[in-house]
């Protein structure tokens, strides 16, 4: 034994049962914290994917603004991507209402809710994407031509260059959707397009989005009705100032605090199961000449050693539980969604939470020891 701390492994060898109980409590605490935070995070990411799919991945949208204003906004340093999404005009296709949407390819892919599934994006004014169920209904294929009644009542031929995924809102309203290039939409737009058209903005990572929105409002003299936020997405990013979201954040913070308290109490309870024995032992060390600091070091190192065993086991246990639970739980909670994206989320979450849970529980163990 080269140091007084060499007493610790010998103490653990003799008090195996108590040591195992403490390690088990640490393991359960790690498992609990990791499982709860992982599943909460996965639920949030799944919801985020869902909202991106249904609303588009934009952070803010400008309404009734001119091209000059839009260009100036897009030139801002904190703007990653921006573009016009034209909507609002409708027509008829074989007796069924068709909703037109127009945007450039990049905007459509990143900021709009339409997800292209096959073929190529329309580049000419007489090319279009059609939604999948419409293609199926009329037995159409990519490359076919179709005649559509446009908003002004005239007939126009479009060549189908690709398809996009059906949207719930479209199926519910029993309408079909046609995605056109910017020029294609502008060629047929009517007065309804003015209300439905937005200039969508995606900010760079790390931007304080609410501050940026306020700045844009002030800089360009926009009214409250001319700029809106994508509340659902910003809420999940923790950047919404909506009252409902603020309430959710508060509830989430309280739950986080409660989970951490539960973890601390679990570990403390195991350390306190043999309070009398430990009190006598530390009193004995003091009688032999150990200072308060040395006794504290002894206790902390004991806690760290137990964490070093309990934390990895707890993480392994959590890693085993989460994938088994999430396939069933997340499927029901968040819908089918994008299974590939959900799988990717799972891996990302696990890696991130291993480190966070390990650090959090080592700190909890040290805190509980003291």
């Amino acid at each position, binding site marked *: *034994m*080269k*140091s*007084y701390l*060499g*007493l610790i492994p*010998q*103490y653990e*060898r*003799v*008090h195996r049962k108590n040591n195992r109980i403490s390690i088990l409590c640490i393991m359960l605490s790690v498992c609990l914290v990791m499982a709860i935070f992982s599943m909460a995070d996965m639920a949030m990411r799944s919801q985020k994917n869902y909202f991106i799919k249904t609303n588009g991945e934009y952070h803010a949208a400008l309404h009734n603004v001119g091209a000059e204003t839009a260009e100036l906004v897009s030139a801002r340093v904190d703007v990653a991507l921006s573009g016009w999404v034209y909507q609002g005009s409708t027509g008829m296709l074989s007796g069924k209402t068709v909703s037109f949407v127009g945007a450039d390819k990049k905007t459509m892919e990143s900021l709009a809710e339409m997800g292209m599934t096959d073929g190529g994006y329309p580049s000419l004014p007489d090319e279009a994407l059609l939604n999948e169920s419409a293609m199926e209904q009329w037995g159409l294929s990519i490359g076919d031509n179709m005649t559509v009644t446009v908003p002004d009542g005239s007939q126009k031929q479009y060549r189908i260059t690709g398809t996009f995924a059906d949207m719930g809102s479209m199926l519910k309203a029993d309408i079909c959707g046609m995605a056109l290039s910017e020029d294609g939409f502008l060629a047929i737009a009517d007065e309804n397009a003015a209300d439905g058209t937005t200039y969508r903005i995606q900010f760079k990572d790390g931007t304080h989005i609410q501050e940026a929105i306020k700045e844009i409002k002030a800089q360009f003299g926009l009214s409250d009705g001319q700029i809106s936020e994508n509340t659902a997405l910003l809420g999940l990013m923790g950047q919404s100032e909506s009252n409902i979201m603020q309430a959710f954040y508060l509830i989430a913070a309280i739950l986080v605090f409660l989970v951490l308290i539960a973890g601390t109490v679990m570990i403390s309870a195991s350390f306190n199961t043999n309070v009398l024995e430990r009190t006598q032992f530390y009193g*004995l*060390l*003091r*009688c*032999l*000449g*150990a*200072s*308060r*600091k*040395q006794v504290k070091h002894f206790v902390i190192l004991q806690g760290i050693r137990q964490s070093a065993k309990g934390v990895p086991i707890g993480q392994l246990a959590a890693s085993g539980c989460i994938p088994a639970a999430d396939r069933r739980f997340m499927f029901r909670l968040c819908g089918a969604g994008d299974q590939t994206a959900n799988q990717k989320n799972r891996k990302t979450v696990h890696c991130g939470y291993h480190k966070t849970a390990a650090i959090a529980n080592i700190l909890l163990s040290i805190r509980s020891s003291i």
Partner: protein
Amino acid sequence: MIVPERQVMIMNILEVQNLCKTYGKGEAEVRALDNVSFSVGKGEFIAIVGESGSGKSTLLNVVGALDNPTSGKVLIDGKDIFSMPEKKLTVFRRRNIGFIFQSFNLIPELNVEQNITFPLLLDYQKPDQKYVEELLGILGLKERRKHLPSQLSGGQQ
């Protein structure tokens, strides 16, 4: 020969002055030590005797700096131990006071040799192996060096 008072004080290894120790409050108050004063010279061997509950253990605990008095002074080699800060007192006790407890207070998880060297490790000193061997020889515990306290007789402990 008249010895100057200052020299008398230096020759005393231990001086206890008006030592009081009280436990509890009000009706449950117990005055374990009531103005105890005595001195012990260097090289002197004393025995403290008394009936059960007379305060012998309390006196030893206070004199050995294991407990704090309610009032009074304890001077060891001229130093007032209870005027020292707690850290300094711990080190002083570790280096200058040896205590054999009634219940032995051996660390049950350590063997004989480790129990002998442990206080030195607390003082961040490297045990002198030759000295440890000599001690084991004197105590007749050479063959028992790797035994735990629970494996020793009362006398050996």
